[in-house]
């Protein structure tokens, strides 16, 4: 029996090797290295291992690369098809990215005119599968999202022999990149390079299917965790920074140098090169170990290096205390070339900031960008949501934590601007982004399906932040923080879905919040309450001898509150009387309007909806209150500014023309 079984097993094993192709753990496996993290054990389920050798030609902004990708089939089923992202091909005139960017706008440059310098290319020169031969001729471009045949951002290969469950496959890919002058995120500007999304990158097997979307004007990225070993060869004059830890830096006889980097438990790799960088090295003592901070500044911004390092450390500190530990050994902050459209971007352990040489101290835009991009180390880097389909889960949740952190660092009303008496807070800024596009798109939507780039930005960033800030008002600030911490700790190094997040909040708060999520996350309902009318009249108004006397005359006061739009939300209302008395009401908002009546020896002074300013989602804050007496001082103040500007312009016109 045993002999028969053994024989059968040998036959099955032999045939499965033939059917499933190479499954050779000796030659192909994912390394269990931990040299780039402050942990003795790997932190993620490592699906991929990229080993890349890249030579960059700074003159032509091109790169020749050799990539060995080891993929671990953890899908539980045999895989014979593998899709790969070739993101740089998005920067071609007929590609979907350019088409959408032209139509709807982009985060950076306007595309009024196409120029050859914008051309990007990620060309596979050869494609070999270990044990299955050269499959270059089998590669096929696919367009799963829009069928645009001119879009070459996803390529697919069909393997003759499937990869069995728990098997490994190794791809050996030779490729050539042509970097564009940066239109968004990646490319060159003058002698600067930011190499992002620059190598063929396998899709993610997610919920029983490959998830490998085309590159769109609004979308970002999605990839599996793994290990990266990358060699970059550049001219010796270049100063280089990259994802992960630097392993070696060797000068070559031909005037180039080769830098080697290693990254653990990450899902992307980016690097930058410029002859001009000045580097500030710093360290943050994290809860899992020290984090080496490299702040790579443009020479003209060197005076702001400390400013960048300071906000980076403050942000790290807040994230560690509020959400969870930062486990990586490095964090590189890059201040990219001005005008490069590469600022404000996140990659694992590598972020880009944005500033100018004249940046005043009271304008906290560098702080905003650094905080935001660092936040992505958590909401994208570790909690690796699908940025194509759930952009709100990285950008939106990150915008929410950005408000919290910046409020804590720089004050709620001054976290963006506090200069020359003018102030602006991040909280209001996020809300402002949303209210202009409030009814156009839901939050839960594929990122490339938004009405416009403004709508994508306003909803994904602004609305999500406002929804979560409003949620704080429902479940309490402490509970919300606890929910965020739980969500991070539970889903770090995984790919959670929107329901994973929403259910975590419900679980931690112990509340059924579907009524809210259905409207705020899944719906396009607009929240807008107003004080529709107020009225305060003496009860004895009809009597001939009647005379009003403060404190003695009895008034009947009425207040009408109106739900103007379709978002139903319970609200608090504060009614104030001229004797100082305050009355609080709570309305569930179910009906279209409600009236509150009072009979008191005091006249109505003011009515205010949401007196504690907990509802960030209300589209119009001006109609949330009504005072009995008009106060024209704000208008006079603004009109004074307006008059001043008009006078000045009139004088300037007359000064030069007559």
């Amino acid at each position, binding site marked *: 029996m045993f002999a028969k079984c053994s024989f059968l097993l040998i036959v099955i094993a032999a045939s499965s090797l033939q059917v499933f192709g190479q499954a050779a753990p000796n030659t192909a496996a994912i390394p269990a290295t931990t040299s780039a993290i402050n942990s003795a054990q790997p932190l993620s389920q490592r699906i991929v291992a990229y080993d890349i050798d890249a030579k960059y030609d700074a003159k032509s902004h091109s790169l020749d690369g050799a990539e060995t990708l080891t993929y671990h089939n953890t899908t539980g089923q045999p895989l014979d098809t593998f899709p790969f992202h070739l993101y740089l091909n998005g920067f071609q005139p007929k590609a979907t990215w350019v088409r959408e960017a032209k139509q709807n706008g982009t985060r950076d440059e306007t595309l009024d005119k196409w120029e050859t310098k914008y051309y990007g290319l990620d060309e596979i020169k050869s494609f070999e599968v270990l044990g299955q031969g050269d499959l270059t001729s089998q590669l096929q471009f696919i367009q799963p999202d829009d069928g645009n045949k001119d879009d070459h951002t996803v390529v697919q290969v069909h393997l003759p022999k499937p990869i069995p469950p728990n098997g490994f496959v190794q791809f050996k890919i030779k490729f050539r990149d042509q970097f564009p002058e940066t239109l968004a995120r990646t490319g060159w500007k*003058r*002698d*600067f390079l930011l190499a992002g999304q620059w190598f063929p990158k396998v899709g993610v097997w997610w919920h029983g299917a490959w998830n490998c979307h085309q590159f769109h004007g609004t979308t970002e990225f999605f990839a599996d965790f793994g290990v990266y070993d990358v060699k970059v060869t550049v001219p010796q004059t270049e100063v280089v920074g990259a994802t992960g830890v630097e392993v070696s830096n060797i000068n070559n006889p031909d005037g180039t140098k080769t830098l080697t980097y290693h990254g653990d438990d990450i899902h992307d790799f980016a690097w930058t090169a*410029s002859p*001009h960088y000045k580097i500030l090295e710093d360290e943050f003592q994290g809860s899992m170990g020290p984090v080496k901070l490299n702040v790579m500044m*443009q020479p*003209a*911004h060197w005076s702001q290096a400390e400013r960048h390092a300071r906000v980076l450390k403050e942000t790290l500190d807040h994230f560690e205390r509020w959400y969870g530990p930062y486990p990586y050994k490095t964090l590189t902050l890059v201040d990219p*070339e*001005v005008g490069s459209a590469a600022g404000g971007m996140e990659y694992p352990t590598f972020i880009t900031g944005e500033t*100018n*040489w*004249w940046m005043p101290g009271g304008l906290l835009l560098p702080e905003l960008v650094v905080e935001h991009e660092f936040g992505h180390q958590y909401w994208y880097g570790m909690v690796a949501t699908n940025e194509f389909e759930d952009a709100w889960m990285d950008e939106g949740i990150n915008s929410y934590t950005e408000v919290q952190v910046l409020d804590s660092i720089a004050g709620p*009303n001054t976290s963006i*601007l506090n200069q*020359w*008496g*003018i*102030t*602006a*807070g991040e909280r*209001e800024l996020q*809300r*402002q982004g949303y*209210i*202009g596009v409030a009814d156009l798109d839901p939050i839960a939507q594929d990122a490339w399906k938004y009405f416009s780039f403004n709508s994508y930005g306003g909803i994904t960033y602004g609305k999500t932040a406002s929804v979560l800030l409003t949620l704080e008002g429902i479940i309490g600030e402490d509970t919300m923080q606890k929910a965020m911490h739980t969500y991070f700790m539970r889903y770090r190094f995984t790919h959670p879905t929107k329901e994973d997040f929403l259910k975590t909040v419900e679980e931690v708060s112990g509340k059924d919040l579907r009524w809210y999520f259905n409207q705020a996350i899944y719906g396009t309902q607009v929240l807008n309450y107003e004080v529709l009318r107020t009225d305060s009249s003496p009860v004895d108004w009809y009597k001939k001898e009647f005379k009003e006397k403060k404190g003695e005359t009895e008034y009947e006061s009425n207040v009408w509150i109106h739900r103007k739009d379709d978002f139903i939300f319970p609200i608090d209302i504060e009614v104030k009387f001229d004797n100082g008395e305050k009355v609080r009401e709570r309305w569930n908002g179910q009906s279209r309007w409600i009236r509150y009546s009072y009979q008191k020896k005091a006249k109505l002074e*003011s009515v*205010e909806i949401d007196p504690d300013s907990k509802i960030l989602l209300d589209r*119009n*804050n*001006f109609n*949330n*209150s*009504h*005072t009995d007496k008009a*106060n*024209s*001082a*704000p*208008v006079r*103040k*603004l*009109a*004074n500014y*307006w*008059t*001043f*500007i*008009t*006078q*000045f*312009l*009139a*004088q300037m*016109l*007359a*000064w*030069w*023309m*007559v």
Partner: protein
Amino acid sequence: MSEKKSLLSAGAKIAGRNKRYVIWFYLLNLTLASFGAAAFRNQAHAILDHSLYADKLLHGFHLIVLLELLARPDFGPTNASTMPAFYFALLFFLATMLFLPGVLLGYASDHRLPRYEFYRTCGQNIWRFVRLFLFFVIIAGPITGILGAAKNALAKAADQTSNERLPFFTQLVCLIIIFLVLTAIRIWFDLAQTRVVIRDEGKVRKSIAAAYRSMKHQRVRLLGSYVLIAFLAVIALIVGIWIWIKIVPAASVLGAFIVGQVILLVWLAARFWQRACAVAFYLEYENETPVETLSVPETVAPIMPGAQPSPAV
């Protein structure tokens, strides 16, 4: 330096003696701008007067709240308030063109100009000033265009380098050059206007040519005076705005109004000072050079040493 000083002080004396013109123009400027701001005021009243949220605009200046106000559909389109402001600014420009001849004659007089004389001069020079304006546009327009294009080209070239400050300073230097060139053209036409009014010169081209000749001889002195006055005006503007921001309480509408208006009054006075310098220069220059055979209005005679009274106007 002493010459420049004397021109500045001569101009200051003339402008100081005729303060009323600055005051009248200032009042006109304020009145028109108030009309120009009326639409904005009306749009804002309906939203802000009974709203507690408006308090954020009074006690401090919350930029986002202002943007939210301007974006409100019930506030109306922003051009509903910007266009009236533009129209009233244009009206002030036209009013300046209309009344400037009277001012120049007043500056050239050693006595207070009778009202009828002021208006008569204004009326008499309307078409001449329109023509001067057209000539100014014909000359200054292309020059500004060429200089602007050169500025853009240089800035673009500077942008190719990695020196981030270079494009900015290139633009700054170019703007200073444009400012100086335009100031020189302005001086030229200020002198031409002065000549047209004082000589009652109907042929404006002749005045433009003569003004060019006179300016050419002492361009550094004139340019120096104009630039110095403009520099003082900019300093006054900066100091005024600093006081506005740092000293005036955010909620003090009256305080902000007073500071703002003082700035504008000083700014306007600076321009009138420049014009007074042009008049002083013209009078001095004409004294030193042979007087052309041109008729001069009777009313102007007392301030024209050496000039012959005209037989009839």
